[in-house]
């Protein structure tokens, strides 16, 4: 069975109305991802899908590489995500280097290394918990045993992610013991919860891989009858999210910044379906994960990738 997600949206809009399948927002020109080619105290050259692009730093520009650093700590060859300020595409407001994230169910843990299953369709990921962040991690993730959930942000180094910040507080029971969602008689048109980010390119070839630049979403409630398929290992999310397929579009608004956008569903967010958490730094009290946005989409809505999430309102279906 062929899947043409753009055609799906076109037909859905034709049959159910434009409100049901609004066209995706244009990618934000202020968010750029690529590979750092040259960096000085005042300027950055990045290889992107468009070729080489140059950006300027100003005194207020901030840099992140596992922690807040200076421009001298960003290395040539780093996978960089740049958010520009001032309404243009010239001056860097904030730069993140070698962002990585490990989200899912722990498969094995050996010393300071944790192997995590992110759900079907994504390869297993290894997280290394360095000594300097082990205290923070132990507070939020006290049980590093198979079956327990894990979600942390860190720096990608040599195929693993060196964790720096736990994104969530681990539930005190294995993922399979999570209570089922009560039956939902009504599904609200707009739902509040949290939105996280994921990287469909896994930090590789950020200058050539279109997945690294895509502005889209992974959705935790893909229809098991069509897209999720026989290998589907997602759970029922704790929020009553309408069942959708790849190609649907969801409207997401960051409740903290008020910035919103419409994003196509590109992947299944199997791991997100197992979490029923709140955002540590968010303003709202809503729990449960609505979607995972790609890094450019998450950043374009004002999200801070190092925080891992923001509270949001989503309209879907």
């Amino acid at each position, binding site marked *: *069975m*062929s*899947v*043409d997600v753009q*055609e*799906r*949206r*076109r*037909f*859905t*809009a*034709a*049959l*159910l*109305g*434009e*409100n*049901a*399948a*609004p*066209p*995706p927002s244009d990618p934000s020109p202020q968010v750029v991802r690529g590979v750092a080619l040259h960096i000085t105290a005042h300027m950055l050259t990045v290889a992107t899908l468009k070729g080489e692009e140059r950006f300027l730093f100003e005194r207020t520009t901030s840099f992140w590489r596992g922690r807040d650093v200076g421009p001298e700590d960003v290395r040539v060859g780093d996978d960089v995500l740049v958010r520009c300020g001032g309404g243009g595409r010239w001056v860097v407001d904030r730069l993140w280097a070698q962002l990585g994230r490990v989200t899912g169910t722990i498969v094995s843990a050996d010393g300071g290394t944790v192997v995590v299953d992110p759900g079907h369709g994504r390869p297993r990921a290894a997280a290394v918990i360095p000594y300097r962040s082990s205290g923070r991690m132990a507070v939020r993730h006290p049980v590093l*045993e198979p*079956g327990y959930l894990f979600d942390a942000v860190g720096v990608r180094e040599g195929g693993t992610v060196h964790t720096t910040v736990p994104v969530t507080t681990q*539930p*005190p*029971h*294995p993922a*399979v*013991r999570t*209570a*089922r*969602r*009560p*039956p*939902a*008689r*009504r*599904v609200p048109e707009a739902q509040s919860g949290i939105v996280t980010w994921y990287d469909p390119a896994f930090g590789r070839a950020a200058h050539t891989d279109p997945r690294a630049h895509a502005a889209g979403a992974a959705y935790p*409630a893909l*229809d*098991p*009858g*069509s*897209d999720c398929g026989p290998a589907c290992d997602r759970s029922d999310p704790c929020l*009553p*999210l*309408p*069942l*959708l*397929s*790849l*190609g*649907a579009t969801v409207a997401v608004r960051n409740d903290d910044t008020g910035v919103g956008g419409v994003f196509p569903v590109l992947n299944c967010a199997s791991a997100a379906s197992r979490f*029923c958490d709140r955002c540590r730094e968010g303003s709202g009290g809503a729990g449960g994960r609505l979607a995972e946005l790609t890094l450019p989409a998450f950043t374009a809505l004002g999200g801070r990738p190092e925080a891992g999430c923001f509270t949001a309102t989503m309209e*879907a*279906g």
Partner: protein
Amino acid sequence: MTPAELIQIQPPLVALLLLLGAAAKAVDRTGGGGPVSLLPDVLQRPAAVATALLEAVLAVALLVAAAPVGAAAGWAAAALFAASAALLAVVRRRDPKMSCGCFGGLSTEPVGWRTIARAAVLAVAAVGAAVAGGSGLQALVGLTGAQAVVGAAELGVLAALSPELREAALRTLGRESCAVRRVPVRRTLSRLRTSDVWRANQVVVDGTEPVDVWRHGCWRLMRFTGRRNGRPVDAVFAVELRGRRPRVRAAVSDAETMVTLAVLGEVAEEGGAPLPRTTGGAPQATGTVVPTVPPAAPAPAQGAGEDGEDPEDGEDRGGPRVPRARAGAQASGTSAGISGGNGAGASRASSSDR
């Protein structure tokens, strides 16, 4: 009637609750939740099974055995319920999202004061069963009106303290919103094939299996390839996932030019200008309909025309909002079709909203 006689209703009542709990736990595959979640992982499933067995044994003993065995079962049940109440309070403090597991998979709501209060009420009832002296079956055989009233009142209190009842009702009656309900593709296909819309447009479609199937909340959409006037087309059907006679819509699009030829019974002029498009490139309905039966009466107001709704189905209309012009066209019963030949030859409904 003396209190000693009224208390005779307690053994069958407590046995009933124990049996229900044991049965629900036995069929629950997760085996988690409630006090057993306080145990190490490897012990949780065995502990859940052991609890279900214990409840079943106590229930049978309360039903068939008089004192002293029945009394001992009553005291054991009282201890079980009292311990459950205390442990549920611990669970609630440790993990506020954890379910009580009292009725297996039906207990999905987090442990609350209602659940703890229910365990306490049952502990008191079990003490009554212990001191009653007779077996549960004896009490049922000699049931008096006063005992029935007391039993019904007690069951009412327990029902009020049981969030599982609402869940059981929703599951049994299938009242979960169609937007989140899992529906097999085969069932949707069979609903489509029995619809007027399918029969009217079948001539356009090649083959019987869709080349693409996707879900959009309360709707499932299916794309078929076909030919119209010798040109390859895509015929897309949308089937609503509620009721036995769901609404069905259809659209035909030129596979090469991607011009939408017909939407919701609209038939585009052959060779005419393409339908207007949005900034995203999606075709917009023109609101033009080719009627074959003049509407006898003015179209009902929107809302009344939210038509075809399963009378048993009182849930929210979770589907996307339909623009007023379209909804009106549907509600009026306008019959227009996607013709397999000339576009003007529309003859059958392509939007079935019964």
